[in-house]
C-alpha cells in the first residue's frame, strides 16, 4: 500500500516516544532498564549460585528471547484494540497495526542485545559468523511466530476479551516449559520429550549455541532449526490469510 512503511515507522516511533514521555531520564531508560534488570539476575546467579560463564550468558539470552516472545504476544494481542480510535475513523492497511506492535518487541530485543554485549565484556561469549547466522535465524523465527499468532489473536480478542487473561497464564506456562533457568538435560527423559515439542526450546537452544558457542555450530543445526522454522512460516501465512479475511467484518465489534 501507498504509505505502509511510513505508517509503520510512525506507529513504532510514537510508541517509543510515549514510553519515555514525562520521565526525567527519558530515552536513557531504554538501556538503563534492561541493564539494571540483567544486573540483578547476573549478580544473583554468579554470586549466590556460582554458575559458570556460559550458563549466565545463556540465561540472559534465554530471558531476552522469552521477553521478546511474551511482550510481542501481548502487544500483538491488544494491538488492534488499542488502535480502535484510529481504525474506526479511517481506512488503512490494518496489518500495519499488528506488525508495528510486534516489531516493537523485536526492537526491544536488539536494544537488549547492547546490554548483552556490555555483559559479555566481563563474561566473554564466542560467536562465529556461522553462529551468528544461526542466531539470526532463531530470532527471525520468534518474530514470525509472534506475528503469526498475533494475526489470529488480535482479531479474536475483539470478540472475546477473555483471551487476554488466558494468554498471560499460558505465557507463564510456556516460560517454564522452555529451558531458560534449567537445562534440558536436568529433566527426566520422558519429560524432556514434551519440552522438546515446544518450538521455543529448540529456538532458544540454537540462539544460545550460535551466540555463545559459535565454533560448535554444525550444518545439522541449521537443518534442525530449519524444520522448526516451518512452524512460524506456516503460522504467519495462515495468520495473514485469516486476518485479511476477518478484518473487514470486525470494525463494528470494537
Amino acid at each position, binding site marked *: 500500500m501507498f*504509505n505502509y512503511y*511510513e*505508517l509503520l515507522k*510512525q506507529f513504532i516511533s*510514537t510508541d517509543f*516516544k510515549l514510553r519515555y514521555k514525562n520521565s526525567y531520564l527519558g530515552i536513557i531508560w531504554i538501556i538503563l532498564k534492561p541493564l539494571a534488570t540483567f544486573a540483578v539476575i547476573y549478580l544473583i546467579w554468579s554470586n549466590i549460585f556460582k554458575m559458570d560463564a556460559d550458563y549466565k550468558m545463556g540465561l540472559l539470552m534465554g530471558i531476552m528471547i522469552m521477553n521478546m516472545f511474551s511482550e510481542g504476544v501481548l502487544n500483538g494481542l491488544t494491538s488492534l484494540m488499542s488502535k480502535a480510535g*484510529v481504525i*474506526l*475513523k*479511517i481506512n488503512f492497511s490494518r496489518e500495519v497495526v499488528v506488525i508495528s506492535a510486534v516489531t516493537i518487541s523485536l526492537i526491544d530485543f536488539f536494544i537488549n542485545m547492547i546490554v548483552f554485549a556490555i555483559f559479555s565484556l566481563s563474561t566473554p561469549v564466542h560467536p562465529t559468523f556461522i553462529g551468528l547466522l544461526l542466531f539470526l535465524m532463531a530470532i527471525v523465527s520468534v518474530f514470525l511466530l509472534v506475528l503469526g499468532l498475533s494475526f489470529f489473536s488480535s482479531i479474536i480478542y475483539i470478540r472475546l476479551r477473555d483471551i487476554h487473561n488466558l494468554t498471560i497464564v499460558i505465557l507463564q506456562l510456556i516460560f517454564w516449559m522452555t529451558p531458560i533457568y534449567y537445562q534440558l538435560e536436568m529433566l527426566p527423559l520422558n519429560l524432556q520429550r514434551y519440552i522438546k515439542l515446544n518450538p521455543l526450546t529448540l529456538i532458544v537452544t540454537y540462539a544460545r549455541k550460535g551466540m555463545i558457542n559459535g565454533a560448535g555450530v554444525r550444518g545439522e543445526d541449521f537443518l534442525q532449526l530449519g524444520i522448526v522454522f516451518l512452524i512460524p512460516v506456516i503460522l504467519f501465512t495462515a495468520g495473514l490469510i485469516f486476518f485479511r479475511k476477518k478484518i473487514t467484518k470486525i470494525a463494528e465489534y470494537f
Partner: protein
Amino acid sequence: MELDKPIIELKNIKKNFFLPHEKHDTFIEYFSHPERLFRRAGEQYEVLKDVDAKIYPGEFVGIMGRNGSGKSTLLKILAGIYTPTSGKVITRGKMVPFLELGVGFNPELSGRENVYMNGIILGMKKRDLQKKYDEIVAFSELEKFMDAPLKNYSSGMQVRLAFSIAIMADAEIYLLDEVLAVGDVAFQQKCFEVFRKYKSDGKTVILVTHSAGSVKEFCDRALFLKDGVLHDLGSIDKVIEAYING
C-alpha cells in the same frame, strides 16, 4: 456531467447491526443459560435498508437526516470502515474521510508530533508534511504552542490544528462529517474558503451536516436520509424542508 462515470456508486446498500435484547455478561448468567454462549438473544436491527446513489466527479453533495437515521453508518461504509451486509460500494479515486478531526491525536505528544502522526494516518508522506509544516502551523495560528503537549491545548485549539492538517490531505473525494462547526467565526470563514477551493478545484465532496445554511451555500445537490433509506428529493430546498419537518 452525464458523460462522466460516477466517482462513487452505492448499489442497494443494506446494513444490519445485532441488537442484543438481554444483558448477560457474567459467568453466572451464562451458567444458568449455557446455550447463550453460542446464541445471544436479540434481533437484527436494520440501520440502512436501501441506499442507492451515484455521485459524479466534482459534485458537492450534502446528506441530511435526523439523529439515528443512519448518516454515520453510511459514511463509515463509504469510507470502507464497515462492510455492508449486502450491496456494493464502488469508488473511483483517492478518498480521505474526515469522520472526525485529529484521528490518531495523542494528548501526551506535542503539537508538532501530532501533526506528523495525524498527517501520516491521513495518507500523507512525511517528506510532504515537512514541506507543508509551516503552512499547517500558520493556518492553525498556533505558532507559539507547537512544542507544548496537546493535552494543554484548549478544545478549540485542538480542532484548529486538526483542521489545518486535514486540509493538506490531497484526494479526489472528501467525506466530511459535521466538521463545519469548528472554531470561532473568523476560523469558520477560513474553513469555508477551503470548501470553496475544493469546489473550484473540482473535488468531490460529501458533506453530512445538520446545517441548512451550509448545504444551501456549498452543495450542488442534497440527499435526505430517513429511516435507512436515501431519498433524492430533486432539490436542495425540498431536502431542507423534509429535514425540518422530520
